């Protein structure tokens, strides 16, 4: 595909990398918020080509990983209710909660179905009027508008058997939480390309303004990531932090107004619990009162039992960038993709999965 080749040109990549090496004189700890960036940087072999001054840290940008055990437990408990069809993106299936997983619930007889789009979940509700269909709303600002659109479609169709368990999260508050905690010294942030397509690059202005930290919003191809890193190195060296959009073919300063409007028509900002962060104020999305009848949290009062965390699993620290996956004592020993202990090893966007798959020294 021409479109892909243009953004993977090795000669151009080499020139940009040489430029980074020439410019970089001081340490630059750069956090890629998004798990997609972590995986792409490994897959394309970019990390090995950065100068020793530039370090890439993985952030919390894996929707499945940041879902708290309390939310997972509730989703699993709802899935086990008779007459319920649970629809979910595939990544959620294997994530262990306190005592079980959706995969195990399915083996025990729960009707859990993988869908590729929220609208497929609405379709399943239409085809099964005698069943109650729950969609597990996991994801950031990228997926939330599609979930809102599904609720609007269900309303338009007059469906009374479609529900959403909203566990959606907002990315700027989590970034703020990392900086406020002050556990990691960050010199810059690679802004999540897909999320910023929705929320707009202006949404990151608070980082240079309030924290003095530069942002480079980047896409997911080889040259996109290298350009993002180069922009951050430039900003670190010049001491003039700002928000630079290196993904202008997708991202605008104001974002996608249509998507944002749909999202906030159905959902409203609420506090949310994140794995690794605890309760972060105004960092989640819940269904508005007028859409309460689609809210699985209200329609299915379940008591999943006390929340338990796996002892010794530092996924929370990994998500905050405090612990790198190879520093975890369980990594590659007790915790592997076959037998994941924490969600960061399960998800295709998880940092531990990326380090496991690509990070071994050749």
């Amino acid at each position: 595909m021409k479109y892909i080749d243009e953004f993977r040109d090795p000669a151009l990549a080499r020139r940009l990398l040489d430029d980074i090496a020439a410019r970089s004189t001081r340490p630059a700890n750069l956090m890629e918020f998004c798990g997609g960036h972590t995986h792409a940087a490994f897959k394309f072999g970019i990390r090995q080509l950065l100068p020793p001054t530039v370090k890439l840290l993985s952030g919390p940008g894996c929707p499945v990983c940041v879902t708290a055990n309390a939310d997972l437990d509730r989703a699993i408990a709802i899935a086990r209710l008779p007459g319920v069809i649970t629809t979910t993106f595939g990544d959620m299936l294997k994530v262990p909660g306190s005592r079980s997983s959706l995969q195990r619930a399915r083996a025990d007889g729960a009707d859990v179905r993988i869908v590729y789009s929220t609208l497929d979940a609405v379709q399943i509700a239409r085809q099964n009027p005698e069943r109650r269909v729950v969609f597990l709303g996991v994801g950031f600002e990228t997926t939330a508008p599609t979930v809102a659109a599904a609720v609007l479609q269900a309303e338009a169709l007059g469906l009374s058997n479609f529900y959403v368990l909203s566990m959606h999260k907002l990315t700027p508050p989590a970034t703020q939480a990392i900086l406020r905690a002050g556990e990691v010294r960050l010199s810059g942030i690679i802004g999540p390309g897909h999320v910023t397509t929705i929320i707009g690059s202006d949404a990151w202005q608070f980082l240079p303004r309030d924290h003095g930290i530069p942002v480079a919003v980047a896409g997911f191809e080889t040259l996109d990531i290298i350009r993002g890193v180069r922009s951050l190195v430039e900003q670190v060296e010049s001491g003039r932090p700002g928000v630079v959009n290196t993904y202008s073919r997708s991202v605008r300063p104001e974002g996608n107004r249509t998507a944002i409007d749909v999202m906030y028509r159905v959902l409203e900002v609420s506090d949310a619990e994140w794995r690794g962060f605890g309760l972060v104020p105004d960092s989640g999305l819940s269904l508005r009162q007028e859409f309460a009848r689609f809210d699985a949290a209200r329609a299915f009062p379940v008591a999943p039992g006390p929340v338990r965390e796996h002892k010794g699993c530092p996924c929370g620290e990994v998500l905050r960038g405090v612990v790198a996956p190879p520093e975890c004592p369980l990594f590659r020993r007790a915790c592997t993709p076959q037998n994941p202990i924490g969600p960061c090893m399960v998800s295709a966007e998880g940092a531990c999965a990326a380090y496991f798959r690509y990070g071994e020294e050749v």
Partner: protein
Amino acid sequence: MPKTGKILMAHGSGGQLSHDLVEQVFLKHFHNPTLANLDDAAVLPYFANDSRFALTTDSYVIHPLFFPGGDIGKLAVCGTVNDLSMRGARPLYLTAGFILEEGLPLEDLERIVTSMAATARAAGIQVVAGDTKVVERGNADGLFINTAGVGLVPDGVNISGADAQAGDVVIVSGTIGDHGMTIMSQREGLSFNTPLVSDCAPLNGLVAALLEASSAVHCLRDPTRGGLATVLNELARRSRVGIEIKETHIPVRSAVQGLCELLGLDPLYVANEGKLVVVVAEKDAKEVLAAMRTHEYGTDAAVIGRIVLAHPGRVVLRTALGTCRIVDMLVGEQLPRIC
């Protein structure tokens, strides 16, 4: 038998309907004297000399039953023919066991059997024994097919996954990931408008051509489930050698690449049904590549890497940027990303 009918439990009862099904569907399409005897077992000529038999079995459970470029019947014949071919055997005979779901349209069954027969003819093999069972609705996804295949391994041909040697060249017979991405784009909910077609094909002809070109072919593998990456890992482990491949040399169709990018999948791990990997001594690599490229199922064949002494058991990929990374076995299933 009415063409518009459906499979009933009685089709598996052994009574009149069972006989009708055998006569009017299976015998009609798989016609050959051995099967036509309708005896309890096929009796076949004995091949003396020093030839060895190759025997394999496989089961086919796929959804959807029909896809661009093939169907479950074609897949069953190709899969079995290819398994035999990967040991250097010349496939001769096939058996076919059908597990039919009550309610399966007879028209669909006949379409599948017709396709199996056509593929068998193209591959030059005969279906000489078969069986049919019917299970209640809900207990099978339309139909399942189980096959066994028998082939003969000519004298002097010794091919196994344990024979790769340092210095050997690794060739793939064409673009990877076509079958897996075709199936994925057809599945419910993924309504992509792609020009993709499954590569499903019998590879015995291609294998015969490349074995003719060289007596130093050390390994043959068809990268089905788990894709190219998994097969290379199997070869590296079984032969206790390292494998080095170059990202830019691996042929991938742009539509496959695009769809993989969109879903967050890696074509290295996507299934193929009409491709093979050859490990051949360097001295014969050119001849083998040339022979493959003149065959209809090998026109896009390419050298993708080498067998090395370093890192035994591991596959290392050199990226377009010139860096190296390990390509591991596929763990679990590749699932599309959320974000």
